[in-house]
């Protein structure tokens, strides 16, 4: 998970550790005050749950042992004595040590693995340094400074303004050149000389700005390694859970990308790796039978290509079977049988991206089923990326993501269309053609052209955008852009293309939400804005490309943002769930307890409720029952997210009226999202 969650976790852990410490010390002096145990138990339990959420298995293991010790004391199975309390305090110390090391981004000062092992056996941690908390705080001052992310973003924005300004200066320089031409030669000479000097100055300024821009962007760039560490863990845990033997390798960990992009990439990679393990790699016996090594291989690699980064996930598993995919797509109503027949094997692979292709019959905690590839595709579109699939049945599956290095500056082709100027991000551009009207043929009501032998639908960009279009009669060649997105290609007639340019991406301001066809705007050399097209929208239903059309009800539902109530006493869990859901456009309200949730759910209505089980006061099962008894929430889907993983707990959740049960241990955001999407779309 992202560093942000770690930070939140560390802050939350501090609170729980402080209250554990003070509670334990009081208990040590007054062993009779067993009423304190309940609160201590809750502290340990919440810590455990949150640690699992952010994938800190060591802390989760330590706090688990602590929880067991406390439980033993509460149930009277264990004496409340100095030895046990000491053990508990040592546990709290170790957790404090690990979190403080995490905060500082350095390895903890103890052999965590050995400590965990010894701690589980009940040996008090003799590995702990004497002064765990204060010992390292006075460490040498590193030659780095901490900068607020906002400050960095501001810096990059300001540099963006400078780039725009340089362009304006360049435009002025051109204007000066024209003026010089108009002067009689004898008067022009000094101006021309002056212009030449100015040109040099502006050129130098340009170099400086370029350099500054690279440095400023560099500050925002982080290596892939920052997110890939957690992935090894994920693969390891999943392969154990699924009984697969897997060799996981990562290449290109040093490739750097914009922080924002990395945040967007992580859930995508989790999805893809989960898919590779649960659908790709076969069980060891099946692999042996097929004459493959028992151990499957999963490779995550990253490399630069031009101005983008290619990230690939490849597994040598069973591959994707085009025939099976077609059959599944037809049976799930994604496409018509006749349409399916016409698809090539390669095209069939992309059916998995269609909404509705992944269906889940049951919702349980582990994702041993079709993780929604349409969600992956949506996420990739959000970061302006492109995805390609290739596979050979029985041999391999490879998913390639093409991502820009950053989202704040894009390489774009500047075009004019409908009397306006637009920037088309170069990632989506396959080629630029000149097409004579006589080369255009009609198929039904649609116009098509041949691009390298492939029949490609042809549209007028102005027509798609609802702008005034004009097409001159005669056989003058028309400028046509061939755009690609996943496996699809479309050709768009534009008025003209002006050339490639690096454009600074600006938001449209708060008056604008997500506007169809638009990714943002940039400011051109003349000071006027130009809109940046969001190319995937051109491929969407209604945008012209042949695609399944949503029913009016589906469209109405899509327009409304569903509201979700997240109930959890742990701030880590709350924040994570909130940001996962908000990132997908859900409107999220949080509640810190069952009581709080009852109040909030009475004040406004929600489409879905996600609740923890163990909370101070009313627990999640009680909350579910109360909600089910109320008139407004009789039918509202409720998801229980808990660190309790026994079947008994799941059964209780379902009896209380919950629709789904997700265990925090196996928590991945894809699963939560998918469950939510399945329940409320």
């Amino acid at each position, binding site marked *: 998970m992202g560093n942000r969650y770690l930070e939140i976790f560390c802050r939350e852990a501090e609170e729980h550790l402080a209250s554990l410490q003070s509670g334990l010390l009081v208990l040590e002096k007054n062993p009779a005050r067993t009423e304190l145990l309940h609160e201590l138990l809750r502290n340990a339990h919440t810590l455990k749950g949150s640690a699992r959420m952010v994938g800190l298995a060591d802390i989760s293991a330590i706090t688990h042992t602590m929880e067991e010790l406390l439980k033993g004391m509460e149930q009277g199975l264990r004496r409340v004595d100095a030895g046990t309390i000491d053990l508990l305090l040592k546990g709290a110390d170790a957790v404090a040590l690990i979190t403080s090391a995490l905060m500082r981004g350095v390895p903890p000062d103890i052999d965590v693995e050995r400590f965990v092992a010894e701690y589980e056996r009940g040996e008090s941690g003799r590995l702990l340094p004497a002064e765990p908390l204060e010992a390292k705080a006075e460490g040498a001052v590193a030659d780095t400074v901490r900068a607020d992310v906002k400050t960095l973003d501001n810096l990059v924005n300001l540099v963006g303004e400078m780039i*725009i300004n340089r362009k304006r200066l360049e435009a002025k320089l051109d204007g000066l050149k024209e003026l010089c031409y108009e002067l009689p030669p004898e008067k022009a000479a000094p101006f021309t000389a002056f212009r030449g000097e100015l040109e040099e100055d502006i050129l130098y300024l340009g170099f400086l700005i370029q350099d500054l821009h690279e440095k400023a962007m560099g500050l925002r760039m982080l290596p892939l390694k920052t997110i890939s560490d957690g992935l090894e863990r994920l693969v390891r845990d999943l392969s154990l859970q699924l009984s697969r033997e897997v060799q996981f390798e990562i290449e290109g960990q040093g490739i750097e990308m914009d922080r924002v992009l990395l945040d967007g990439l992580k859930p995508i990679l989790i999805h893809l790796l989960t898919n590779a393990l649960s659908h790709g790699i076969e069980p060891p016996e099946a692999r042996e039978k097929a004459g493959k090594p028992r151990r499957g291989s999963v490779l995550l690699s990253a490399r630069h290509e031009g101005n983008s980064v290619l990230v690939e996930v490849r597994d040598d598993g069973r591959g994707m079977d085009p025939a099976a995919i077609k059959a599944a797509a037809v049976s799930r109503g994604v496409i018509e049988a006749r349409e399916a027949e016409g698809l090539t094997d390669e095209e069939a692979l992309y059916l998995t991206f269609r909404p509705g292709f992944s269906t889940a019959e049951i919702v349980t905690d582990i994702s041993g089923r079709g993780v929604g590839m349409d969600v992956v595709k949506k996420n990739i579109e959000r970061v302006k990326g492109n995805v390609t699939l290739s596979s050979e049945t029985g041999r391999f599956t490879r998913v390639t993501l093409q991502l820009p290095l950053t989202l704040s500056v894009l390489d774009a082709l500047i075009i004019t269309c409908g009397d306006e100027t637009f920037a088309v991000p170069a990632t989506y551009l396959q080629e630029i053609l000149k097409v004579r009207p006589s080369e255009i043929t009609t198929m039904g009501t649609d116009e098509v052209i041949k691009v390298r032998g492939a029949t490609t639908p042809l549209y007028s960009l102005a027509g798609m955008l609802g702008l005034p279009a004009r097409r001159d009669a005669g056989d003058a060649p028309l400028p046509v852009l061939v755009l690609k997105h996943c496996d699809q290609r479309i050709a768009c007639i534009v008025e003209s293309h002006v050339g490639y340019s690096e454009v600074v991406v600006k938001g449209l301001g*708060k008056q604008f939400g997500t506007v169809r066809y638009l990714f943002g705007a940039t400011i051109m050399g003349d000071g006027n804005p130009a809109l940046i097209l969001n190319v995937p929208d051109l491929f969407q239903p209604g945008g012209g490309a042949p695609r399944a059309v949503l029913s009016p009800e589906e469209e109405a539902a899509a327009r409304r943002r569903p509201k979700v109530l997240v109930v959890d006493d742990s701030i880590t869990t709350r924040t994570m769930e909130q940001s996962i859901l908000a990132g997908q456009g859900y409107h999220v309200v949080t509640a810190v307890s069952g009581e709080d949730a009852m109040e909030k759910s009475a004040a406004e209505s929600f489409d879905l409720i996600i609740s923890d089980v163990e909370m101070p006061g009313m627990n999640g099962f009680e909350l579910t029952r109360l909600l089910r008894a109320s008139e407004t929430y009789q039918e509202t889907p409720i998801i229980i997210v808990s660190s309790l993983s026994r079947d008994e707990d799941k059964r209780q959740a379902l009896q209380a009226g919950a629709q789904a049960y997700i265990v925090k241990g196996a928590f991945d955001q894809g699963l939560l999202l998918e469950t939510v999407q399945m329940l409320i779309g």
Partner: protein
Amino acid sequence: MATGNDNGYDIRSILNQMREEYWEALSEEESEAKQMLECLVFTLGGERYAFETHFACEVIRIPKLIRVPAVQSLVTGIFNLRGDITAAIDIRPMLGLAQPELGPTGRILVVRGDLFSTGILVEAAHGVQPLDLEQFETATAGLSAERKQFIRGHFNLEEGAILLLDMEALLAAPELLVGEA
């Protein structure tokens, strides 16, 4: 790690507050003499309208407006306001007014709402005038429902009436928001 400093001591906000108190005190003194409302006056659909100056950021000539495809017609286009992309909106249909073409006297009034700044296209701007509240009538009888929604009343002046726009209601109107939230 970002450190929140919400309850910290912030000289800028204190200065702002002092300045606001100063202006409030000034306007109170003035209001004792005569109840005046500082308004920006302009022409919309051939009629004279006004709103309180505190909503206005600036008045500019209409720059080149870039059309935004596939959005409501209210949004005439966007323009560059010193580096910020800002929408230019034609609110005349919201008020049920005719839309005579914007000539050389046309202006954009940049106004700031709680959430966003936006540019209102007007046929002409006549500057800031203190308007006498004695002459203000809240009566909106005779106005169509759509106009009532955004008009608080009118000033009966010798040279003709000036309608007072309810800027708060106007800026909060959902019609102004573009695209999905």
